[in-house]
């Protein structure tokens, strides 16, 4: 898609440089001249927002580490030191903690946009799978990071999640002891979690490079799902996409700032302001909000091993989406039936999230079981069958034709 670089170095230095390391040409062809479908809507701006958030998390994180102590007896104290005595420490910590939540808000919108417009379909399967890997890495990073303040939810969340691995037959218990670095969650666990929490964002950054590379090979999908055919169908990334992305990024920052400055603890849990205490189990252990749908799936299954398999399966199944969806038409705009099921699926995920925050008792368990069944049925039954039986609407011949048609309809 990007083809040969149209970059013409102007200065003598840039000409000299371009013959030795054509980095300016690479940037130019990837972020300036790169052709982007002209009909992209605002749902396509979340990739840029996610890159911004990754950068913001890394910067605030690096500064927090200058003041934080990853030691079981001192971690909680050092976080309070950051909140009270470090200049703007409260701001750094609230930016970082809420930044993680905003990262998940943005990634969920990004994933759901991909699902609605069929962005995972041929030839974007690898692009999609890299995205699923990024999501998994994000989940791991978020979980590890939540452990670091060493509050009650940090400690007990880490205990519950690491205990998943004890479900593995025969070697489970040994694996968990190995993960903990002892016979329970303790200082060795905190120290290794800290190490990994610092490592994974850079792994994420690496996979983001692959994700963007794959994107620039196959090109962006667009709301029609019809590939760009002529130059009339695309616009240059800069200034068109850059202007649009910047506007939306600042709008997103308004939401981000609202949480950071006005309700900074809303997305956290009060119990995490109680220092970790292995002798006292909180009444009700809940993970961070972004894991709640998967937590509901885990607890919906009565058998522990099967529950863990269902939990990982519910994320792993996303990687197979390009082949489970049998429809040749990408965009839900032209798939009237899929569009209904898509919104039901979104509602089911939200329902699972709500149930994940509730205690596993009474009607909540039954509801979680039904929604869990539906979650898997969406991928394993509905999508494969739908592609075969659905009568789709006629696709426009090109992107520019669809823009003209919608303009005519508007006038």
């Amino acid at each position, binding site marked *: 898609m990007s083809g040969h670089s149209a970059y013409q170095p102007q200065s003598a230095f840039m000409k000299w440089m371009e013959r030795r390391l054509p980095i300016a040409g690479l940037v130019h062809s990837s972020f300036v001249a790169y052709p982007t479908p002209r009909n992209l809507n605002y749902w396509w701006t979340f990739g840029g927002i996610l890159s911004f958030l990754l950068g913001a998390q890394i910067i605030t994180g690096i500064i927090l580490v200058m003041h934080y102590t990853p030691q079981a007896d001192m971690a909680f104290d050092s976080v309070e030191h950051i909140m009270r005595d470090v200049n703007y420490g409260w701001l750094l910590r609230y930016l970082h903690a809420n930044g993680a939540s905003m990262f998940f808000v943005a990634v969920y919108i990004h994933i759901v946009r991909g699902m609605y417009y069929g962005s995972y379909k041929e030839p974007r399967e690898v692009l999609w799978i890299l995205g699923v890997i990024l999501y998994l890495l994000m989940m791991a990073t978020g979980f590890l990071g939540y452990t670091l303040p060493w509050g009650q939810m940090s400690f007990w969340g880490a205990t519950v999640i690491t205990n998943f691995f004890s479900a593995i037959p025969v070697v489970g218990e040994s694996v968990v002891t190995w993960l903990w670095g002892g016979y329970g969650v303790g200082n060795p666990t905190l120290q290794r979690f800290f190490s990994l929490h610092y490592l994974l964002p850079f792994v994420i950054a690496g996979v983001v490079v692959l994700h963007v590379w794959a994107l620039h090979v196959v090109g962006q999908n667009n709301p029609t799902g019809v590939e760009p055919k002529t130059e009339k169908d695309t616009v240059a990334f800069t200034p*068109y996409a850059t202007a649009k992305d910047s*506007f939306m990024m600042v*709008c997103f*920052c*308004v939401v981000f700032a609202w949480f950071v*400055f006005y309700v900074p603890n809303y997305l956290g849990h*009060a119990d995490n302001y*109680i220092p970790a205490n292995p002798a006292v189990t909180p009444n009700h252990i809940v993970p961070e909000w972004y894991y709640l749908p998967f937590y509901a799936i885990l607890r919906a299954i009565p058998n522990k091993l099967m529950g863990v398999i269902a939990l990982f399966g519910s994320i792993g199944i996303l990687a197979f989406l390009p082949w489970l969806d049998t429809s040749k038409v990408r965009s839900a705009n032209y798939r009237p039936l899929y569009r209904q099921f898509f919104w039901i699926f979104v509602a089911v995920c939200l329902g699972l999230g709500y149930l994940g925050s509730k*205690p596993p008792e009474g009607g909540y368990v039954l509801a979680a079981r039904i929604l869990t069944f539906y979650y898997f049925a969406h991928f394993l039954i509905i999508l494969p069958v739908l592609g075969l039986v659905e009568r789709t609407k006629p696709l426009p011949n090109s992107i520019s034709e669809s823009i003209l048609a919608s303009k005519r309809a508007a006038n």
Partner: protein
Amino acid sequence: MSRTILAFALAGSLLGLTAIGSQPVAAQEHESPVPPRQTWSFAGPFGTFDRGQLQRGFKVYREVCSVCHGLKYVAFRNLEALGYSEAQVKTIAAEFKVTDGPNDQGEMFERPGRPADRFPAPWPNENAARARYNAVPPDMSVLAKARSYERGFPWFIFDIFTQFQEQGPDYIHALMVGYKAKAPEGFALPPGSYYNEYFPGHTIAMPPPLSDKQVDYTDGSPTTVDQYAKDVAAFLVWAAEPHMEQRKRIGFQVMIFLLIFAGLLYFTKKKVWADAH
């Protein structure tokens, strides 16, 4: 239309049992009532602490709570934020005994507190506290953020927009006024504990700490348990979030900046795209 019906019928049949499934869960035994909402000067986007209230709350903490509860993350120097002068803070600090050392002879020694010291712990270690009080009284530095109650659907969604986040002080106030002289009939209260309406499980090891006229107020505020409870809860919110006022002030500036910036970018975007359509 028929497609819509088909989709909903299919999904409905898969989800049909959910309605039966989500019957309200049987109320837990001895469910705690929701703490009543109080009015707080620090609530909302422009909320600020009431210095007079913080000083009263500090007085309650110092004369009542501090006997058993620590405040280990708060330093005496921080009290200037309550409106005390540097000299007053020095005097307050000097009224506390702080362990320092070891000195040149290798001995630990006690000396009067200095503004740079943090509030000394009321007991030497947790076991000592347990021996004395039958429980470990929690440190109060972040207590106002460490206590909450569930808001439930749909209130937790509205809270994002209304910025309601005062569950902590509401709960602390409710706990202070929630003692009952006698447990309800049929409630087995273990010996040495007290019945409190708002404490989870209702069995609390702390005896009712406040009584009317217990702490002298010099500003004419009522010397009632209710007023003491409000004042000490406000003080604890300050102790837990000492930079709250700065946070909300910067937040407002950030919001103004972002909204203007977003507006400018919107028109930039419009101009850029004007020739593309």
